[in-house]
C-alpha cells in the first residue's frame, strides 16, 4: 500500500471529506511524528508502535565505489519498534 492508496481508502470511509482534506490530515499526522523526532522526542502510538531516535557515533566510512576513506559524523537515526498488537497480527494465518 502506498500513500495515495491510503488516501483513497480513507476518502471512501469519509465521503463528507474531500481528498484534499484527507491528504492534509495524513500530512499533519506524519509530519507531526517527524517533527517531534527531529526535536529529539519520542512518539508512542499505543497498539501500533513507538518511534524514537538512536545516536550513532562518528566513524570512518568508505566510499564503496572508490574505496576512499570518509569521515562520517555522529548523528541521530530514526527507529521504530512495532507494538505488541501489530506483532501478533502479523503472525495470524489467514
Amino acid at each position: 500500500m502506498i500513500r495515495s492508496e491510503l488516501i483513497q481508502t480513507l476518502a471512501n470511509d469519509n465521503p463528507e471529506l474531500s481528498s484534499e482534506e484527507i491528504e492534509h490530515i495524513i500530512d499533519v499526522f506524519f509530519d507531526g511524528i517527524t517533527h517531534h523526532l527531529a526535536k529529539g522526542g519520542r512518539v508512542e502510538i499505543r497498539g501500533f508502535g513507538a518511534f524514537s531516535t538512536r545516536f550513532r557515533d562518528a566513524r570512518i566510512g568508505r566510499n564503496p565505489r572508490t574505496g576512499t576513506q570518509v569521515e562520517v559524523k555522529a548523528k541521530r537515526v530514526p527507529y521504530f519498534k512495532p507494538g505488541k498488537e501489530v506483532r501478533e497480527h502479523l503472525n495470524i494465518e489467514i
Partner: protein
Amino acid sequence: MQADIPTLTRADITDMLYHEVGLSRADSAKMIEQMLGHITEALRKGENVKISGFGSFILRDKNERIGRNPKTGVEVPIAPRRVLTFRASQLMRQRIIKGA
C-alpha cells in the same frame, strides 16, 4: 539518548488534527483510528506500506532457528515468523540530522 521533552502520544496527535485541520476531537480520533487500521490491515495481508516523505513499513519473514533461554541455557526452537521493520525516508533522516 532522548532529549528531555515529553513523549508525543495519540492524544497529542489528535489535538494536532483538531487545531490544524479543524476536525472535532472525536473526528480527529476516528481518522487516526481508521488510518492505523488500514495500515495494520495491509500489513496483516502481507503488503508493505510506503508513505512517501515518511518511510516504509517492511515485512520480513524469518526462518525457524534454535534459540536459547538466556537464563537456563536450554535450547528452544523459535518458530518461523513475520516481523515488521521500518525504513525511514531520506527526508526524515535529513530532518532528524538537522534537528528541525
